């Protein structure tokens, strides 16, 4: 504890070096240069600059937090030093680039990058400017950390708001134009970037909203908590109705491009609900989940395709139950041999199953039936009342329907006896069996229902793409869905949707990042796991609200309630069921 009051220059040194190395790495791989011209706030800040200075800013903020608490100016010094030190690796890079042809070793260190790093002022002057700018950023970050929370939080959220609007300017401006016309867009945006005035306004609005929520948020929450159970249910049902209404009109708000993104998100969310049952509820680690997705897709293909491989020419709606049934059967088929396996062994076997299905799909053996590497083509879209649902805006409702069914079933089961059976089995399989739970049935049900949801998702997926190929059904999909539910919060239903939004939605709308998309995916995963390992929306909110809520008298500790030999009140300790 004493040490925290002493000046330790190793801290800014360490943090500065980390920041510098991160900034250097980002520069060297080319992501900074990629966005060198991409303005967030027109004429002032580019995305490239933000990416470059993000690490120095963050590290200076953290270093300032480690400064001796009693001397405020110490935090500022720490921040300044961190910023200055962070610039050093970049300066070295710039100097090196001036002396040798660095592109031989680091092909992405383009002139554009150097231009950005030196602020267009040539190597020597530029290096100095870089140093100063970095130091300033460090200083400002440190100053930010010193602010009282009620100013700091709104400021940070304000900056975040401006950043997000600037980042997603393309999508936002397109939507704005759809609703309010081109003039409205021109007020706020200039090409791809925010107009400076608009940026300031957005900053102020977001900051104010944050401050308002900080003030009032707790009060709103406590008012909700103090409501009677009946009123709470009313509020919940009301929000649910509102939520569903919003979901129904969503395509109108989002337009075609975003509807397509949402369709992908929902298809994955549907799979997420299924895997959530297998892994989240029942605790069975299934790494081959994509198998059932494939089975559903190929079944839909065979049944509805109007091409050579289609056998039945069925309509989408007739085929769906069949796809689900066959996928369910697949789930039971997988479940039976693995009933005794636990943990790693279960994971490996299920992984194998997933690969078997993929290889079968790719094989020459089944090629006459399902197309092999050439794929299964000409799958029809669903038809309602004569119209084929081709546009994403319309197809959306099919996917939404599937997701709502899956969410409903998942929710009901989680609250029911079967949900408890799964949870008990996950917590302690032997004791669960000793409670009278038939493990075989419970496990098979988990696999079966999980597979059913994946089959439904696959069937919808096939219809959406109208042609499917084996390479779409690889292990990465299984892993992606698993990551989704971990990031969202295992076992939690809203978590599945949030996970899908984060890991499927975000990469889609961040297409700007081109080849760095996977890097972003990895960064999101790592950040999520560091920040919230339990998931975005963990299912600890499992308080069962009941109409029969007996425990209105909350007493502090068990000692007070122990069955006391002498002093017990015969009335209170009547046996439960005589």
């Amino acid at each position: 504890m004493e040490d925290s009051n002493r000046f330790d220059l190793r801290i800014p040194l360490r943090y500065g070096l980390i920041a510098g190395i991160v900034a250097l790495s980002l520069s060297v791989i080319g992501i900074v240069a990629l966005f060198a011209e991409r303005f967030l706030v027109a004429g002032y800040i580019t995305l490239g600059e933000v990416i470059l200075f993000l690490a120095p800013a963050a590290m200076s903020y953290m270093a300032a937090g480690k400064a001796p608490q009693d001397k405020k100016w110490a935090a500022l010094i720490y921040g300044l030093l961190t910023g200055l030190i962070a610039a050093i690796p970049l300066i070295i890079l710039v100097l090196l680039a001036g002396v040798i042809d660095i592109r031989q070793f680091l092909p992405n260190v383009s002139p554009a990058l150097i231009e950005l790093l030196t602020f267009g002022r040539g190597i020597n002057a530029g290096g100095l400017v870089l140093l100063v700018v970095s130091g300033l950023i460090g200083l400002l970050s440190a100053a930010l950390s010193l602010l009282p929370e009620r100013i700091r939080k709104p400021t940070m959220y304000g900056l975040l708001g401006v950043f997000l609007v600037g980042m997603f300017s393309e999508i936002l401006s397109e939507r704005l134009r759809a609703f309010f016309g081109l003039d409205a867009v021109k007020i706020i945006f200039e090409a791809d970037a925010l107009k400076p005035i608009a940026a300031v306004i957005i900053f102020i609005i977001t900051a104010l909203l944050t401050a308002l929520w900080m003030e009032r948020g707790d009060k709103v929450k406590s008012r909700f908590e103090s409501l009677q159970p009946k009123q709470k249910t009313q509020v919940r049902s009301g929000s649910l109705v509102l939520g569903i209404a919003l979901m129904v009109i969503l395509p109108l708000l989002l337009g075609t491009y975003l509807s397509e993104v949402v369709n992908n998100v929902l298809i994955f969310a549907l799979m997420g609900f299924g895997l959530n049952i297998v892994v989240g509820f029942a605790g069975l680690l299934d790494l081959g989940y994509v198998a059932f997705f494939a089975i559903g897709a190929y079944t839909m293909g065979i049944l509805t395709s109007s091409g050579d491989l289609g056998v039945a020419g069925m309509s989408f709606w007739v085929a769906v139950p069949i796809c689900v049934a066959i996928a369910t059967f697949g789930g039971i088929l997988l479940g039976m041999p693995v009933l005794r396996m636990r943990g790693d062994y279960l994971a490996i076997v299920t992984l194998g199953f997933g690969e078997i299905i993929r290889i079968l799909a790719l094989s020459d053996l089944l090629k006459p039936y399902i197309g092999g590497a050439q794929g299964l083509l000409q799958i029809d879209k669903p038809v309602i009342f004569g119209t084929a649902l081709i546009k994403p805006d319309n197809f959306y409702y099919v996917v939404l329907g599937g997701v709502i069914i899956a969410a409903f079933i998942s929710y009901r089961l989680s609250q029911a006896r079967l949900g408890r059976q799964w949870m008990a089995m996950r917590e302690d399989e032997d004791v669960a069996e000793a409670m009278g739970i038939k493990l075989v049935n419970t496990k098979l049900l988990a696999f079966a229902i999980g597979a059913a949801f994946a089959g439904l998702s696959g069937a919808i997926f096939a219809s959406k793409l109208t042609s499917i190929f084996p390479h779409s059904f690889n292990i990465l999909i299984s892993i992606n869905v698993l990551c989704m539910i971990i990031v969202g919060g295992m076992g939690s239903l809203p978590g599945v949707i949030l996970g899908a939004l984060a890991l499927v939605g975000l990469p889609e709308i961040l297409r700007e990042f081109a080849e760095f998309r996977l890097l972003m995916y990895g960064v999101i995963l790592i950040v999520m796991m560091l920040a919230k390992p339990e998931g975005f929306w963990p299912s600890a909110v499992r308080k069962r609200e009941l109409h029969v809520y007996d425990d209105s008298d909350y007493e502090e500790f068990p000692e007070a309630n122990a069955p006391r030999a002498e002093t017990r009140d015969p009335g209170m300790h009547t046996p439960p069921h005589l």
Partner: protein
Amino acid sequence: MAILTANSVTKRFGGLVAVDNYSFEIEENSIVSIIGPNGAGKTTFFNCLTGFYQADEGDMLFVGQRLNGRTPDQITRMGIARTYQNIRVFPAMSAIENILVGQHPRLKANWVESIIGTKRYKQEEEEAEEEARRLIRYVGLTGLGDQLARNLPYGAQRRLEMARAIASQPQLLLLDEPTAGMNPHESAEMMHFIKQLRDDLGITILLIEHDMRVVMGISERISVLDFGTKIAEGTPVEIQKNPQVIEAYLGRGAAAGISEASTETATN
């Protein structure tokens, strides 16, 4: 009438004979204890009874029906429940949820009904939850029903485990060291609670216990195991004076010394 009969039960683990030719009979509605030094085979015997292990030799009969070869869930549904030496509540589930799982054998509605939400299902769930809350109060955990089991203090977890065990309305309850880790006051309360279970609910109780005050205080019969074999069986008074029992616990020298002392105090 004997509710549970064990005939020459033997359980081996490779070369180690954990339970050796053990025969034992329990009368209905009685409280019986199995005692013995650590490693004597007591918990192994429990595990054979509940189907967690399969006995190698011998039979176990519960109300006339054979227990051998049955799975644990079948045995529970026949009417036997147990608690564990090292409390095994479901940690991430609430106390109420733990007890609801305990009620599993008694609930009839299936999962399809739970999705649809049939009347029978809703009614059954309501009654189950009411029953769970009553059990929470019965064992003295009022107000802690919605707490996660792992957050409960040790004594509360023990009581939760017992509530969970009696939730299935068993005829025979196996308690594995119910007073482990308790101070004398808590042990006395537990003694009283166990007697209450037998008196109020008509449950037959088979205990494994190390605390002699508890054993001698509530048992009607005691069976003593050492290295897997039964070395004595009888009433508490008989067992206290039995030289082999004393030797098993305290060694040969003590056996001689204590048997002298007990002949003096046995005049009560």
